[in-house]
């Protein structure tokens, strides 16, 4: 019997941690890795050594994620780091983004693949400008689940009153931001209270521990039924004349961005608009009959339809809009500001189109959360803008469909990725 038959598998959850410097983000991540015993014995002994060298008695958990701090000292670009742990029933990927204001782009990057965000608050400081900024960015990137972790409870005598006060403050502002699923938890990352173990200092709190919240959080990005979206990545034509079965094989390869598909479903190929039905759903050349969101598969259609990378296969009854103009929230990522005179390349699913800015509606001040007039976009700016496209794109609004609502902006001369967009 395989070891995998013995344990349940609750899939994989991607989350990000946000907090201001010194709120305890590294300590929290270290605590999660440590208390879930993910730290391999050899890593552990290396950490113990460093702690001793620095004159610390106990293991400093934040050293586990110290890569970032070393960089900060050396002034290298500070970037999103990815960390991993597993409870045996669920695998976790943490996107750890530095919290400074100038790192808006890092947080957007980290949030783009996450389904849950932990927002850290220092219990002594309460809701700060940064807390609002992080929450707003999380909602902008469409993170459906938020955990507000009120940390350093040991420094406020584990006071329930303090906790309730911060919670009320947060809720007041959250109503304006529009995040649906918000949970609160009191923590001491340093002492490990309410992270994996409950500890005995927070007995007035009767909710689940942080890890228990993570264990049951929905792993799928959305609970809603989404329409079928299948951008074609690659076309497989073995053209093996010796093998009659493969002679006419024409497989459309891609990953299902949303929805599900099964043999017999009526589909339309975009942009041609040609219709057909699904003859076979395959993985590795083997029929699997049906498939759903996030699976990488190969589709075979009943009719011969000329299809190539950049096309999209959808269910005939639920086709997306084909547009040559888009309005989107854009975060500018590059050091060189957006140049209104230039043509950029927009990459949306597997499709590229040249694009030109036609207007900037307004810019978001990430600290006051106010919309301000703007006529340019510099690094870390977030703005609502419009583009004119050379090729039609098949889009859904980002908040309804992440896969077909997101795009990146590429500078064709440097080939750099300079912007991230979410279609409105």
């Amino acid at each position: 019997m395989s070891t995998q038959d013995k344990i349940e598998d609750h899939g994989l959850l991607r989350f990000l941690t946000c907090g201001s410097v010194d709120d305890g983000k590294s300590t929290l991540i270290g605590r999660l890795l440590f208390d879930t015993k993910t730290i391999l014995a050899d890593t552990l002994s290396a950490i113990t050594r460093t702690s001793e060298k620095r004159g610390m008695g106990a293991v400093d958990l934040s050293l586990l994620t110290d890569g970032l701090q070393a960089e900060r000292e050396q002034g290298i670009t500070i970037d999103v780091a990815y960390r991993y742990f597993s409870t045996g029933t669920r695998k976790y990927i943490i996107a750890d983004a530095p919290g400074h204001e100038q790192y808006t782009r890092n947080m957007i990057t980290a949030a783009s693949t996450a389904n849950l965000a932990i927002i850290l608050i220092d219990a002594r400081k309460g809701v700060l400008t940064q807390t609002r900024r992080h929450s707003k960015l999380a909602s902008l990137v469409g993170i459906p689940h938020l955990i507000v972790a009120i940390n350093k409870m040991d420094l406020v005598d584990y006071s329930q009153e303090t906790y309730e006060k911060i919670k009320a403050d947060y809720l007041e502002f959250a109503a304006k931001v529009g995040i649906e699923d918000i949970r609160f938890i009191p923590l001491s990352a340093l002492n490990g209270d309410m992270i994996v173990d409950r500890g005995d200092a927070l007995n007035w709190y009767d909710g689940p521990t942080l890890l228990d919240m993570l264990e049951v959080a929905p792993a799928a990005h959305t609970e809603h039924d989404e329409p079928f979206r299948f951008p074609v990545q690659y076309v497989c034509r073995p053209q093996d004349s010796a093998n009659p079965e493969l002679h006419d094989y024409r497989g459309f390869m891609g990953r299902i961005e949303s929805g599900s598909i099964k043999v017999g479903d009526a589909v339309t190929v975009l942009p041609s608009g040609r219709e057909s039905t699904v003859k076979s759903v395959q993985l590795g050349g083997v029929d699997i009959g049906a498939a759903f969101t996030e699976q990488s598969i190969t589709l075979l259609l009943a009719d011969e339809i000329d299809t190539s990378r950049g096309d999209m296969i959808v269910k005939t009854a639920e086709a997306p809009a084909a547009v040559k103009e888009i309005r989107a929230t854009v975060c500018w990522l590059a050091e060189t500001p957006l140049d209104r005179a230039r043509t950029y390349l927009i990459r949306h699913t597997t499709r590229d189109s040249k694009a030109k800015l036609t207007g900037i509606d307004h810019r978001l001040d990430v600290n006051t959360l106010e919309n301000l007039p703007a006529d340019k976009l510099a690094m870390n700016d977030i703005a609502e803008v419009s583009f004119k496209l050379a090729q039609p794109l098949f889009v859904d609004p980002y908040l309804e469909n992440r896969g077909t609502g997101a795009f990146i902006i590429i500078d064709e001369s440097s080939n750099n990725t300079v912007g991230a967009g979410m279609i409105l």
Partner: protein
Amino acid sequence: MTQRNTLTHLDWLEAEAIHIMREVAGQCSNPVLLFSGGKDSICMLRIAEKAFRPGKFPFPLMHIDTGHNYKEVVAFRDKRAAELGERLIVRSVEDSMQRGTVVLKHEGESRNKHQSVTLLEAIEEFGFDACIGGARRDEEKARAKERIFSFRDEFGQWDPKNQRPELWSLYNARSHKGENIRAFPISNWTEMDVWQYIEREGLELPSIYFAHTRPVVIRQGSIVPVNVPLMNGELTNLPKAGEEIVDLQVRFRTVGDISCTAPVESDADNVEKIVLETATTTITERGATRLDDQTSEASMEQRKKEGYF
């Protein structure tokens, strides 16, 4: 509302890796997959099968041979490529040494780091614009920030300041002539995931991944294999004067250049045992208890010995 389907963690990782490989195939004109015969690249070949069969792989396989590889692994490499019917390119560090582009400081110097010279020469020789590699972010701290599509300049250099932001699963593999993309489909896998995948897929591995007895010496606390036979029958990693050779039951967790891969002591002689052994050092107490209480006790003791609280 219907009950949502969610993928198991291995299915999710596999689907992501397939997607990445297909992006390389779709975006790059002349990619290559680096295949060493090691466990990570063995997983990658299975992923490539799932991504591209019944077609052929849209890239050849390539191994940069240091000339100091375990013969079991080299033999396995050739066998696997032949079974798959895919083209295998081998370029060797020894050829670079003959050309004079690789100069060892002394004869015994590890050739591991010199592989990059040979790799760059091969990239130039074949005009590859992308190399698909099996690196994982959990391997070491420094890798935690590596992109899935990592950009290298004309000298093959990785400039941390010049990496492209990577959002959603929208990858940017564009490059100018001479530049190169390294793509890592299993970036998000841990060692545990790799072993679980090998177990689930029933993948065959070179024998030295499993517990076996071999002569070793203990050098500065590490287990160092000695008198290792090469393909040509020559012995390498000779013991130093005064070192005591012992026969130890060991297995390898990675199988790189002989001069710098140390095995671990283990009696795990099949994949299931390796998964359990890996689990006891990686899974939570809760997970581990469910797997096997006794092994978890044993490893806890080991952790304590090594400085656990």
